[in-house]
Structure formats: C-alpha cells, structure tokens
C-alpha cells in the first residue's frame, strides 16, 4: 500500500511547495464526463482571482480513448505551457505509466486507491495521495451511469481540500453551470462535498496551495474559435459556408449561436445565412460567390480544407474577390494529427494556388486578437479585394484562454472598400474594373445590380485588360500582374503592425515569434532576462510584413525565429519577401503537436546564446539545412 502525504520517507525529495504557481494534469477517458468537472476545477481557481492556463488534450475519436487536461496555475499570470507536471491526477489506467513518468521529482500523484496497485506502479521520488473514488461513488450511488458521472466531481472535491480551492466559489459555479437543470446542482454539490469531506478527514493539504488573488482582474475566459466567430459577427459577416473539420468546427458553431442571439429579428427572420457545404470546395465557392456579390462572407477550416480550396483561392487573388478564411491549424501533413496543434500552414496559405500568387494573413496570438482580427479581416478583404487568412491554431482555437474583455467602438463603421455606387456611375464617374486609378494597386468594383446601364462587367479567372475585357495579350497580362504586386505592397502598409518587446538592456540579439507561441515566449524571455540573456523581441501579426519587421531584423546581428512547425515556414517567408540573409535567422522549432512550453524556449534560446557566435543551428554558408 503506497504512502500518503501523511508519511514521508526520508529518502525522497522534499514535497514541492508553491503558492499559486504549479501545474496540475488530469488523465481521463473521453466521453466519461471528466471534461466538465475538470473545467469547473480550472474555473474555480480563476474565480479565486488566480490566473490559469488550461489545455485539453484529446484524441481523434469520440469515446474510450485517453484525454488529458493540463491546468497551469500562475500567480504571475503566465498563460503559456510551462512544461513539467507538479500534481498528476491519472484516472485512466491505459496511460498510467506515462502519466506517472511526467511528474517532476518532489511532485504529487493523486489516484483512485479503491483497488490497490503494486508498488512498481509508483515512483520513489514523488508523493502519492490515494483516494478511494470508485468506492465512495459505488457506496453513494445505485445507478451505474451516476456512479461514473459523479466520480468526476468527487475527485474535484477531494482536490479542493488538498490545494485549497474555496468551496464557496465552487458552489456558485455549480449553480451557474447547471442553472438550466436545477436537479443537477444539488447532485453535483453532494458529490463535490463527498470527495472534499473524505479528503479533509484522511489527508493534509499538500505543498501546492491556492490563495485568493487579483491577477485575473476583469479578464474573460474564452476559446479562440468563439472569439473569432464573434469578431466575424461584429465585422459584419453575413454569409458563412463551412464544412466540419477539427479544430475549426466550433468556430462555425459559435458563429451560428451568436447570430441566433444577435442577428435574429423579432419575427424570426435572420440577418445572416449559414450553409454547411458538401465539402470545402463548395464552401469557399459559396464565399467567393457571395463576396463577388457584395456580402461579407467567410469559411473556416483546417489544413486539409486549405489544400482543397487552393484553386478558388487563386481565383480570388486573380479576379480580385474578397474572401475571409479562418484556418485553425492542426498537425499536418495530410490527416496528420487532427487533434494536435501546429503552425504549419503558413507557407501554403501565403502562396496558395498555382501561378504567381501572394495572400494576406493575420496571425492572432490569443482569443482577444481572434476577436479583433476576426472583425478586421472583413474590412481588409473588402479594401484589398482578395482573400484574407486568419491563422489560428488548435491551441488558440479550441482552448479557453484568459484575455482582456472584448472591446468595440460604437462609432466604428464597416469599411467596404472601393465600391462604385449607382450615384457615382450616374454622375459619369470613370469605371475601369482593373484600372489602378489611385496608384495603390487597388481598382474599383461594382456590385451586380447596381445600375441599369453602367458599371456592369464580366469577371473571369483568365487574363483581361484594365477594362475587364478578355485579353490574351502579354502586355495586358503583365500590366495586371504588376498591379497585383503593387496592391500587395499596399497591403503591407494597412495590416496590423508587429509589436515590439524591447530588452531591458541594449542587445544585438533579437527574436521573432507569433500566434500561440506568445505566452510561453513572454515567460521564457523573463526567465532568460533573469539569467542575464537580453533579447529584443518582436511579435509578427500579419503577412505581408510591414517595414518595421525588416528594420527590426536589420537592427540586430542575429534573430531567433520561433515557430511551431518543422520547416521554419515564417523564416522562409521573411527570406523570400524581405531578402533577408538566412545566416542571420536562427530557427527555434517545436512541432510535435503539443503546445510549445516556456521551459523549452528558455533552454533553446539560452543554449543558442551560450553558443559561440557563428556556430548556428542553421549553417550560414550555402548548403542544405543540416
């Protein structure tokens, strides 16, 4: 019978002690009801004012395979993954061994001690806490399905005693969560208290403790997909065509929900239209058709969908039709790791489709920016008359993040870009669909049905002259292609600028990062600074890159480019678009499908800075990558 916290053998390292700063990881079986219990666990900590970064790691199946829920508690407010597990709650026999391995020496193992486990199943350098969860529930409930269901909230109860979750907070939460089904409030509360009481009776609190705090402030806890969907509502999107695919599905579902609430008239008629297409090609086709006809339209998908949409993306580029695509990136290539995260669609999205093409991308770093860019994308794609990608990933899209509350300025108007009105046409304004009248590469367009005799034109994917007439002439083609380059230059000046995070001391070392890497990167930078490693950091927020990015690179000897993909895709884009000498760009890559951690980054960049100048992870003399 393994020891409990009450009896510590001298041999093992002292139990970890920390207040508001530790990592708890639950291991469960999907479809077993753990998801909502674990969610309550995380939320209760947030309600105590302590920052939490919670990540749900789930399989590509519906029932019976392993899932994990990692809760990173941070008094300093770090929201990235830290790396390592301080308190493990492995409730899934299938993964027990791996789960136990992950615990840091001196850490804690909380398990269901109903049926005894051989000592070999444990470790000497960790502290084990057994609670007979199954036993408790079998005694308390008759119906098997209830036994399973309430076991989850029972272990949350036990944990609440061990790490100091405020039970009053939990009670409030349960009342909110089950408001629609009052019957369940009491039932869950009882289960919670059953676990809590048993623990109080048999166990002492552990070294990892929670204290009320105010780091959370008035921040909200939300998924990036929901935030992006809400952004699309505020951005005036009226047409959504999509095809289900993990991890983007919940974006379309959230858009549906928000539209039902916010865009439905009293008589039940809807100020939006949502179509589940038969596939991704139909979905982007619907978006392009709607954009051509003057509605704001979007689709959301993941890598495989982008691959299928390639042809239409090229049409949008060449025929200059607004379209917004939310790409919630997952592990590629092919079907890859559908329930894991990656930043590996950048290169494809940037140059999608055959021929010479370049596309705009927005790179949100958290749900807050998902909302902001989710709305902005529509202004940009109308203004630029082309496809705008919003590049999320599973980590941002499907995980709940703590972010500042969403903001909106009621004076803000939708920017529909250069659209000729019937009045302008009537007044005899010049209209040449593909003529660069403003010298910014952006031509004017008209919506179908605008004027009885003026402004009609024929849209095609083939080459044409400035008046939209069919042409196979080389000069017409080249003239048009050069204008498209000019337009892309304009894009670089209106997309969100990169944001700097200067080092405390002057340094020649810089770092570029983006998207979901952000919180872990910020934590790593603090850590490195504490070690005396000073790094000017810049977060890239869009493609094409603004001049500020090139200036930043020019101002440093070496730049670490941090990405969650294998092939250093952002680095490639910097080289291609900015003519950067690759010798100055050092790749820091993490791509196993798990979200990048602060500890990984601190090590990788730290080692890099220790290393001699000149010796680079990426060789500086011509030759293939090592």
């Amino acid at each position: 019978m393994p020891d409990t916290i009450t009896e510590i053998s001298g041999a093992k390292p002292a139990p970890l002690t920390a207040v508001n700063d530790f990592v708890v990881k639950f291991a469960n079986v999907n479809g077993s009801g753990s998801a909502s219990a674990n969610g309550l666990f995380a939320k209760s900590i947030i309600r105590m004012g302590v920052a939490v970064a919670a990540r749900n790691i789930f399989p590509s199946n519906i029932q019976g395979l392993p899932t994990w829920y990692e809760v990173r508690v941070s008094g300093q407010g770090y929201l990235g993954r830290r790396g390592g597990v301080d308190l493990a709650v492995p409730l899934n026999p299938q993964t027990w061994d791996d789960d136990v391995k992950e615990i840091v020496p001196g850490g804690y193992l909380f398990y269901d001690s109903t049926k005894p486990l051989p000592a070999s199943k444990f470790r000497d350098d960790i502290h084990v806490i057994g609670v007979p969860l199954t036993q408790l529930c079998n005694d308390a409930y008759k119906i098997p399905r209830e036994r399973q269901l309430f076991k989850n909230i029972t272990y949350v109860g036990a944990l609440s005693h061990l790490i100091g979750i405020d039970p009053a907070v939990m009670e409030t939460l349960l009342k909110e969560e089950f408001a629609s089904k009052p019957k369940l409030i009491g039932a869950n509360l009882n289960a919670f208290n059953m676990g809590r009481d048993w623990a109080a009776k048999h166990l002492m609190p552990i070294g990892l403790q929670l204290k009320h705090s105010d780091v959370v402030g008035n921040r909200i806890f939300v998924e990036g997909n929901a935030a992006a969907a809400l952004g699309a509502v505020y951005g005036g999107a009226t047409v959504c065509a999509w095809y289900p695919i993990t991890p983007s599905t919940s974006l379309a579902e959230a858009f549906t929900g928000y539209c039902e609430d916010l865009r439905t008239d009293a008589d039940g008629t809807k100020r939006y239209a949502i179509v589940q297409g038969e596939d991704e090609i139909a979905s982007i086709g619907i978006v392009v058709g709607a954009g051509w006809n003057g509605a704001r339209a979007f689709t959301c998908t993941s890598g495989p969908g982008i691959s299928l949409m390639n042809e239409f993306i090229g049409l949008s580029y060449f025929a200059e039709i607004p379209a917004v695509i939310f790409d919630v990136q997952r592990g590629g290539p092919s079907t890859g790791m559908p329930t894991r995260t990656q930043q590996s669609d950048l290169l494809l999205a940037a140059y999608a489709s055959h021929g010479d093409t370049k596309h705009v991308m927005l790179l949100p770093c958290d749900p807050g920016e998902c909302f902001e860019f989710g709305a902005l994308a529509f202004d940009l794609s109308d203004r630029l008359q082309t496809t705008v990608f919003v590049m999320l990933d599973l980590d941002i899209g499907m995980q709940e993040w703590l972010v500042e509350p969403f903001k909106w300025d009621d004076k803000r108007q939708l920017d529909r870009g250069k659209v000729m009105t019937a009045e302008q046409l009537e007044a005899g304004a010049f209209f040449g669909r593909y003529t660069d009248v403003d010298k910014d590469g952006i031509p004017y367009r008209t919506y179908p049905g605008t004027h009885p005799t003026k402004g009609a034109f024929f849209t095609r994917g083939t080459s044409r002259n400035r008046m939209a007439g069919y042409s196979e002439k080389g000069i017409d083609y080249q003239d048009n292609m050069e204008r498209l380059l000019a337009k892309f230059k304009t894009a670089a000046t209106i997309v969100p600028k990169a944001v700097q995070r200067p080092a405390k001391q002057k340094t020649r070392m810089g770092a570029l990062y983006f998207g979901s890497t952000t919180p872990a990167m910020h934590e790593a930078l603090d850590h490195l600074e504490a070690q005396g490693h000073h790094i000017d950091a810049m977060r890239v927020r869009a493609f094409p890159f603004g001049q500020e990015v090139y200036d930043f690179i020019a101002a440093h000897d070496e730049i670490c480019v941090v990405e969650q993909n294998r092939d250093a895709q952002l680095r490639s884009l910097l080289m291609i678009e900015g003519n950067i000498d690759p010798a100055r760009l050092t790749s820091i890559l993490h791509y196993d499908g798990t979200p990048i951690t602060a500890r990984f980054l601190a090590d990788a960049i730290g080692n890099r800075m220790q290393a001699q100048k000149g010796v680079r992870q990426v060789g500086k003399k011509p030759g293939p990558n090592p």
Partner: protein
Amino acid sequence: MTYILKPKLHHPSLPKNDLGLTRRDYEGKVSTLCAGCGHDSISAAIIAACFDLAIEPHRLAKISGIGCSSKTPDYFLSQSHGFNSVHGRMPSVLTGANLANRDLIYLGVSGDGDSASIGLGQFAHSIRRGVNMSYIVENNGVYGLTKGQFSATSDKGSKSKKGVENTESGIDLVALALQLGATYVGRSFSGDKEQLVPLIKGAISHHGPAFIDVLSPCVAFNNHAGSTKSFDYVREHNDAVNRLDVILGRTPITATYAPGEVREVTQHDGSVLRLRKIHEDYDPTNKIAAANYLQERHAEGEIVTGLLYVDPNATDLHDRLETTARPLNHLGTAELTPGAAALAKINASLR
C-alpha cells in the same frame, strides 16, 4: 452568330418589350464559338426569353464554370454582371451570390463536362439545397474547349473523334435532378426555339431550383467517323494530318416538332438523336411518374424533351433559412454590428 455582330443602333422598327427595350439590349459581345455551335442558339434563346419577360438586364446575374458553354454568358446580356468562374464550380459560386442578394435573378450556365464530370457533386448539392436559380446545361456530350474528349453524359458505346469507344454508362442529368429534389425540371434541344424559349422563361419565373438540360450539337467534335457524308477534302485532310486543322462553319441545326411526336435529329456528324416531345396531356406535377416515364422512354432509345416536372409550391434556400427579406449585401453597420453594450453582456457571461 451574325445578329451579335450587328451594331446596336436602335432601328425604330425593332419590337420593344414592356420596358421599352429591344432584343439588342439583351445581346452581348461577339461570340467566339465555332460558327454553327448549338451553344450560340441557346444564347439566342436566353436573349429571347429575357426580352419576352421584360427582365431588367442588370437585375440578372450570369454565372458559369469553364468550357465553351461557360464562355457564352459573355455573349448575351452585356448589362448584366457575369462571372465565368472555375471548372465545375458554378453551382457553389451561384449559391453564394444568391445568398448575398436574394433579389436578383440567377442564371447558371454550364456544360456537360462542367456539370456531369468534375461538377457532379456541386450540381447535386446546389439542387438539394433548393437554390433559387435557372441552371442550364448546354449538353453536347463532349468536352468542346479541350477538343472532343467524352463527358459523363456521353452514352456508353459512342465513339469519339479519335475513334475511342466510351465504356462508361452515361449520366442523365434530368433523372438525377428529379432524384435530388429539383422543383422544375426540363429538357430541350438547342435548335428548337419554340420549345426552348418558353422552357427558359418558365425556369426564370420559377421560385426554386430549376434545371434544364439542353442538347446542343458541337460542330467541331461531334464530327467523327460514322458520318453519312460523301468524300470531303476537309475531313480527309484532318484525318490525314490527324489533328483538327480545319473547322468549317455550319448552319445551326434546327428542329421543330409537335408535342407527343418523336423527331429524329441528325447531328453534323450524321449521328442521330431520337427526341420525344411530351404530350400536352402529360401531368408534370407527378414526380414518381415523371422519373418512371423518363426511364421507360430511355429504354426505348428515346430522349424525352419538354417540361418533365414542376412543383408549383416550391420553396427556396432563403425560405428554408428564414433570411430577412432585405438582401444581405444591402445591410450596413447598424443592422450587422451588435455594438459595445451587447459585447459587455457577452464579456460578463465569460467570467
């Protein structure tokens, strides 16, 4: 076709419709199709139908895929916006356009390759979805623009220009459209104005997914052995150099025949189509009967033409989605952006 070539000076004698417009006002650019191509006859029928219905040209949107047939929207209704999109995807582009503005009339023009081969999925799903459109397939049984390969509507056993035999069973788009829930289904022949023009008018007036399969001979590639014609320098020449070096203009094939009649139409290449025009007393509101009749006649080697099925109480995608009566593309910031107050509520719900 010549009428398109004529300058658009409005001869006083030209008949005007209720809008005071003449046919000229419904014409388009000069066709670049082969002289005699059935597709140009269909363009003429579309022009006639829109003229008769006194449609405001700018209230109609022309959308097509890729192919000779899909080029035709450039050759009619030059005051309408047109979109020659990508191959096989007209249905999705049209669906999106329709969602953006329910007030316009949507005319989808496609080919048999465009709709029955690469586009079969979108053809089927746009119909299932109930998109309010007139979907016209200009069906010549070949890929014209890529020079005469089989399309999925070519009948099993037919031979191509290169003498290759088609080994796949041909798709009857009319039968499929019925299956899939089209609420207006018809078939006609490019050379039969009397039948085709009213059929198109009916489709445009129909509220719901209307599909018309129009058989449309290709003068360039339905031009293979089995021809009944006597020695011809041109064919001999093309055969000898084995490439399609010379293509001669032909006069479009026309076919006028009475309801109930069977009419054999000989194409430029001598191959024969047996067209059966449905009888006046045929009941177009019985779907199962329509499908059954189609199959039986087909078993007899006949191609049924006419209005095969119509559901007078059809609904469309907007009805099903309950979208507001105002076109979505007309809505502005006020109607679309919920504002800061609503956002504050949402923020509160996320704490």
